[in-house]
């Protein structure tokens, strides 16, 4: 498919939509930022796109718990379209708040039945919102399309509720928090939130739905690196490859 079209979902409180759009554009996709109300009114149709993204932010203030209200809105009002989108083999990416929404909406679950929740994102162990850069290691055997060919990354996190809680062994882990050397059991602050098994990102069994707490869209250009003034220059920021993987994969289908 030559023309890749990405839909970036905007809801009240979404605030990373512009830079996420920029990242997808850099990776070669057309991008539409669509308000959730436009989808509800069918002014924009999900099936017109090959990639759907729920970007970072504080949808509906993250009131009650992070991403909960948007998750219910999607589950109850757009559930069928989203299921169709998944069944059609398209890509879904959730970043930060998008991770919380995908999980709480049951779009990305440990066990798919919504009556049997075992996965959630809870408050950080520190009890605080924290903005810091983290080292990440890609799970080598993960089927995740977005992380193909990436070994490790350095990306920022900025969240208060990013602790993955799940029954052990129930997740398709795509991304771990690690230290500089790739050791995934480095403790806080390398694991910034206390996630079980140091999980930073997960995917579904097909590898087409991917969600992560760190923000790849915040490291596209070299000057976004916190130590770019003291490190040898790289052409792209580490996060760029997540977006180019997605766009390039769509081009092949």
């Amino acid at each position, binding site marked *: 498919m030559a023309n890749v079209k990405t839909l970036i979902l*905007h809801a*009240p*409180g*979404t*605030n*990373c939509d*512009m*830079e996420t759009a*920029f990242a997808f554009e850099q990776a070669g996709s057309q991008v539409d930022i669509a*308000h959730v*109300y436009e989808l509800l009114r069918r002014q924009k149709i999900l099936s017109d796109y090959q990639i759907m993204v729920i970007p*970072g*932010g*504080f949808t*509906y*203030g*993250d*009131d*009650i*718990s992070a991403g*909960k*209200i948007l998750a*219910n*809105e999607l589950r*109850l*009002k757009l559930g069928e379209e989203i299921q169709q989108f998944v069944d059609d083999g398209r890509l879904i990416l959730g970043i930060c708040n998008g991770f919380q929404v995908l999980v*709480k909406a049951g779009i990305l679950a440990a066990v798919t039945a919504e009556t049997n*929740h*075992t*996965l*959630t994102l*809870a*408050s*950080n*162990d*520190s*009890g*605080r*919102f*924290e*903005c*810091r*850069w983290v080292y990440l290691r890609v799970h080598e055997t993960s089927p995740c399309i977005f992380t193909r060919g990436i070994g490790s990354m350095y990306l*920022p996190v*900025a969240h208060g509720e990013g602790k993955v*809680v*799940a029954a052990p062994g129930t997740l398709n882990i795509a991304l771990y928090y690690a230290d500089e050397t790739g050791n995934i059991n480095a403790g806080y602050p390398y694991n910034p939130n206390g996630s079980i098994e140091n999980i930073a990102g997960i995917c579904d069994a097909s590898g087409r739905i991917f969600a992560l707490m760190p*923000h790849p*869209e*915040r490291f*596209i*250009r070299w*000057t*976004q690196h*916190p*130590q770019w*003034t*003291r490190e040898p220059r790289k052409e792209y920021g580490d996060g760029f490859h997540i977006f180019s993987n997605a766009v390039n994969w769509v081009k092949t289908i």
Partner: protein
Amino acid sequence: MFRIAVSVKNELPDPRGAGLLKDIRDLGITTIERARVSDIYLLEGIISQGEIDRICKELLADPVVQEYSIADAPPPHGEHAHIIEVAYNPGVMDPVEESVMKGIRDLGITTVDSVKTAKRYFLWGELSEQAFQTVSDKLLVNTVIQHIVTKSEAASLPSTLYDFSLESIDLQSLDDEALIELSKNRLWLNLSEMKRIQGYFSQLGRDPTDIELETLAQTWSEHCGHKTFKSKIKLGQLVIDNLLKSTIMRVTEELDKPWCLSVFRDNAGVIDLDGHYAICFKVETHNHPSAVEPYGGAATGIGGVIRDPLGTGLGAKPILNTDVFCFGPPDFPYQSLPPGVLHPRRIFKGVRAGVADYANRLGIPTLNGAILFDERYVANPLVFCGTIGLLPKSMSQQGQQQPGDLVVLAGGNTGRDGIHGVTFASGELTADSEAISSSSVQIGNPIIEKKLIDVLLKARDRGLYRRVTDCGGGGLSSAVGEMAEDTGVRVYLERVPLKYSGLSYSEIWISESQERMVLAAPPSTVNQLIDLCTSEDVTATVIGEFTNDRRLQLFYNGNLVGDLEMDFLHHGLPQLEREALWEPSQHAEPDFSDNSDPPDLHKDLLRILSSWNVCSKEWVIRQYDHEVQGGSVLKPLVGANNDGPGDAAIIQPILDSDIGIIVSNGINPKYGDIDPYWMAASAIDEALRQVIAVGGNLNKVALLDNFCWGNPEKPDRLGSLVRAAQACYDIALLYETPFISGKDSFYNEYETGEDSVCIPPTLLISAVAVMEHVEQAISMDCKQKGDLIYIIGTTYDELGGSHYYGIHGFIGNSVPRVDPKKGKRLMDALSAATAKSLVRACHDLSEGGLGVAAAEMSFAGELGMVIQLRKVPLGNLNSGNTRDDIVLFSESNTRFLVEIAPEDTHQFEEIMAGVDCAAIGEVIDAKKLEVFGLSGESILSATLSELKEAWQKPLRW
């Protein structure tokens, strides 16, 4: 009614409870072993058991980590648990309530009428009645907005009817004393102003209505009218007619920079960015509300200043926040707190949380700031919040409405919030302030503001309105009153959407409810504007129309309730005449001559690094999102471990353009104790130094001034204000950096009966600079062993007001001065060197002087440094009396430490020819800072880990 409690499952840790436990221990109460927090939701309406189960399971409680219970009243829980339930007072709106309502509607349940939230705290362990009271007073309840729930409460506000009756005030019969009495605690106007109003209505042959008096009081308030700065001031023989025009604004006028697009006119000052885009910048204070209710006061402070760029030109997108706080020391003894005053630590934590929660939700990076401490801020904390906006250059001028255009109010609903906020800010705080002001404080709702920003920028790009302004202090009265100055306006107050019933026409008009903007839309596009807003769930309402009669006419249900001529409203205010007095102060000088022991400079350096003002603010910075929008180039924390103190922040506002914006600030109230002139000069120099230190230049730098002072009716306070303003003119003119906007806050004093505690006069200078290529940015951390360390600038015996004197209990008199001619030459030379990429690292010298700057560069870069004090270029120091401590800790202005690669030193020195510049040291591999004194002997050797630990420890909360 249903009372639902949601808690973290008992077997799981509760981070909020752990945080509370830590705060309790900080109070010195060590007998509590465990604490937990539950969220309470009160739901009213006709709800079936099945529905309530769904609401709990699918919305309110997370099935994996939380559990819920439904009960009638707060039950006792567990063994030895002390329980306290805290709810907001009626009329204080928790934004969560609105979200819960939406969440319930999304479930398809439409019969829930109202939702109210509360928090329930459980404490396990021994706790005396008194200690329980302490925890509840100091941590859990702020009676200004909250109360303890003792019995079942209704979730909804009682519906109150408002019976209209026009209130007019008989002014004509009032004598001077009665006029003052009427003004006191309500209008905050002085006698001559009250008499001017009396005369105006006497001419009209009628009494004013309450709404007319309120409108005049707000328009003429210090907050809106800047009366002090515009007054006629007598200082000795000198008569200054309008201090603002003759100092701050005069700089801009004389420099006449073509890139200044809109200055001192709009809600923020606007400068050109790259020919296509412009940027605007505004810094505001929200001091009094933050003193009374830190969280809400600070949140609405940042919320308010974000609306300034949004209300500038035809609307700018907020792209960066700054914040500067001044608090009492966190270790201030509780027993010394004046009555009615919250502890500095609580104010600090509340303000931090308020700003972070609001700005993070809006997705605006907080990239620059400062936090200062002084005991005189205990009762009067200062909270400065600033926002930079980005807008197309073609939209940078304030719009102009046409007669017949409609007045559209967009955003949040109107409640009793903030009534008298503006006039309250124009008076001094007293122990009663809490009671008087309870209606002035509200909690912001950031999501309403976010929706408003998103939709307004769309409406702007579609050309759906002609003018926009923010609804801030003074509410509609101020916003509509100012907007309609040149045309006239009719407003129909009953059309304003309300949060709850019962507001009088006057309350609607002066309410300062947050998250509102006012637009002027032509009849041809007004419906499109309203439809667009509605489509994104933003309330927008036509509340009136602009006219051409230059009158302000207010109606309520067909009754004319106010009718004022714009000319009188905006130009009727009599100019104040005030006396000012300036007498140089004399402070004790430390006498080191008969001190036979050599000073322990190692210990002193550690003490300065650990002082509240200098120590690391990482605890605060990490809780702000400084990465959102993807533009940060130099972040607030830099270096090998992302934890060194960066000088200024740089962002790239347009993601596919190389152009950058540098933001910095300068503030040092300690120098004001000696001379506010040099304090102001130093603040400007500091803000500019930081711009230069990160690789910027002086070509396109704009300044903002924020004066926070005491009661300007007292001549000594006013005298020091004049001194500071004069320095702003003298220094900024020679640095060629115009002021583009500013703000003042007076009456920052706390009356204690006879006495009055005044804040140190505090001037914040904020700088914004355009950087042509962000890749020229330089960070302050040492990069490479073997590089040379140069000091740029001259070191004088200027320890007056320094941290070095401070830790020894002295202020002294030798305040740092600024030579702006020399300073500009120096900064221009250094920026020529940075433009050629000759500088590997650069850090400006400020608090703690050379010693602190060298330590910070070293531990940020994880590389050691050796420096030789005898190579430092000295100024007026008499060589016979020169001491190591002076050279190491002097806070002389316009100085930098830079790191230069050995192969670049020749070219660097050539460029720096003609300014004081000397190689004084070297970057080394060993992780230590070693200083050799004037005699050539080692006087200080400290490991980087001990230096960094001293610097990080105090605020590692």
